[in-house]
């Protein structure tokens, strides 16, 4: 592991994964990329559907969405990685989460991806997330799935 990527999600439980990834990366002097992805649906919702109105609004809107995602990743990193001696970088992306994880990992030449596995569906049934599955199938490096 030289450069790892951890997916930062929008719920409280994401912090445990970020901490785990941070501590493991620190242990081997690896860099850590913290990626938060704003999905197209979230983006549409946020922008109230106005983003697509003109080309200008579209590009302005999506740049904003990426910046927003990056600052979310930065906030989580500052909170969770405080006191952990790891070199980390926040990254924001807009699009499909699984696709962005693989694309960003490849772009930044990460060799290891950390993602959270979901253990239970709301109905209490054990499920294996499409996200974890898709990343495992499409990323060439190691994918560590942490379920908690």
């Amino acid at each position, binding site marked *: *592991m030289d450069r790892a990527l951890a997916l930062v999600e929008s719920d409280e439980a994401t912090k445990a994964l970020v901490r*785990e990834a941070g*501590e493991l990366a620190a242990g081997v002097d690896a860099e850590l990329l913290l990626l938060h992805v704003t999905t197209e649906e979230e983006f549409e919702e946020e922008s109230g559907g106005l983003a697509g109105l003109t080309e200008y609004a579209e590009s302005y809107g999506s740049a904003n969405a990426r910046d927003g995602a990056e600052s979310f990743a930065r906030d989580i990193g500052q909170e969770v990685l405080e006191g952990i001696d790891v070199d980390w970088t926040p990254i924001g992306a807009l699009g499909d989460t699984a696709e962005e994880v693989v694309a960003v990992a490849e772009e930044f030449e990460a060799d290891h991806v950390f993602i959270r*596995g979901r253990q239970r569906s709301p109905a209490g049934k054990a499920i*294996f997330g499409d996200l974890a599955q898709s990343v495992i199938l499409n990323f*060439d490096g*190691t994918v*560590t*799935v942490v379920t908690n």
Partner: protein
Amino acid sequence: MATIDSIVVATDGSESVSRAVGVALDVAERFDAAVHVLSVVDTGEIDSSPEQLRSELADALERQAHEALAAVDDRADRPVTTAIRKGRPADEIVAYAREEELDAVAVGTRGRHGENRLLVGSVAERVVRTAPVPVLTVRQLDAEE
């Protein structure tokens, strides 16, 4: 502080786990972690075969398990602890990690091409879903990649 002091890699000796073995050994090297290598004799496979073939199949699977462990032992630069379990592979892998109080599990997954391109592999999937510790999954690359 999270660290990996011990890791178990599961092997059935097949091509799809060879890269996972490499990653597990590399992680062990970097974290100076103890390496366990586990091979599971799939009793479901034995039970579902014709009765007159079962003992022969059981012997063959056990031999295969020993060979798979020896292959990893040969590859490793550090001492490894080897174990053979009998049962349902994913359940035995998770139970082993739990009983031995290991910090991580490494499993191989199938490639994305070929007939199983949409499947992670049922053993890997079940291990990911049920393991109490982080699971390192490593996809076997196709020869042309």
